[in-house]
């Protein structure tokens, strides 16, 4: 005998997607932490409290696209590159720079408000 939640396929896929994104953020930070980046540095870059960074990196719950982009940008990463087409009928998989299959094409951390405005 087994049980599972009564979610429709879209709500279930959404739930899995959110959890995958959280895992991707955590893994990305772990990679960057090996190079010496700290939560405090991220907090300073983003101009927010370190506790908030910790909550965003490790806390449960949803995360907005803006927060996601801010975190990845502050870590000098590409937030999100592609959704891979289904392979043999498997559901789509979110690919991030943590997988090693994505080319990091630009150093976002060097962008400034002025250069963005010029562009």
């Amino acid at each position, binding site marked *: 005998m*087994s*049980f599972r939640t009564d979610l429709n396929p879209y709500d279930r896929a959404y739930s899995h997607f959110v959890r995958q994104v959280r895992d991707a953020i*955590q893994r990305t930070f772990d990679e960057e932490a090996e190079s010496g980046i700290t939560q405090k540095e991220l907090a300073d870059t983003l101009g927010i409290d370190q506790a908030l960074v910790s909550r965003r990196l490790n806390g*449960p*719950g949803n995360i907005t696209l803006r927060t996601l982009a801010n975190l990845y940008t502050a870590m000098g990463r590409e937030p999100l590159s592609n959704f891979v087409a289904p392979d043999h009928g498997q559901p789509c998989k979110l690919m991030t720079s943590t997988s090693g299959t994505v080319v990091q094409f630009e150093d976002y951390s060097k962008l400034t408000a002025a250069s963005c405005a010029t562009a």
Partner: protein
Amino acid sequence: MTSRDGDHLKGRSPRVKRLAEQWAVATPHDLTYMSSVVDACKAAGLVAYEPMLRRGKRAWRYVFASAAFVEWVKVDMPAIVPEHSEDGSPCEQFEQEMYGFCSGYALAFGSDTRCLEPIRLSVWELKTPDLRMFGWFCAKNYLVLHKGEKKGPEGLERWDDYKPFIDEVVSFRNGLVTNLPQYVVGGLADVVSNRSESI
């Protein structure tokens, strides 16, 4: 110690180890161990959670539940009104937590889960923005859930606040007729291992 801890991969190349973890290849020892834990849980009247993982992916960790917890998931949990709608419905929050747990994602101690004081009782709490779930590990990577609650806006700060939940879990656990060791003692690394590759 189970073969999940890596004994069966000793001496194998890093690529084989990575593939074994990525695809969670089951060895005969794995299957025997899993079978004994699963059989013991079923014999004790526990209900297995069925994770909906990607095709071809085997769960890294397993969740069983008491009949009371299954009833809570089916009846009480869907009626909970989330504090913040952006966190999703309680069912979605539960699915997120179970998906991450069964997939073998790293758990954040304190945010996702934590062992409650007193640690010697080995009662664990799993958390989402609006839910608290209480249970114990009957074996490494095998979680048994018995009690679910709506998380209040003020949170639980003191041991006394948790005591009713701990007592309920311990009472249920003590009443189980099972040939499993009662519970795993220790910290997060003692009760779960992580799948090292992203899936």
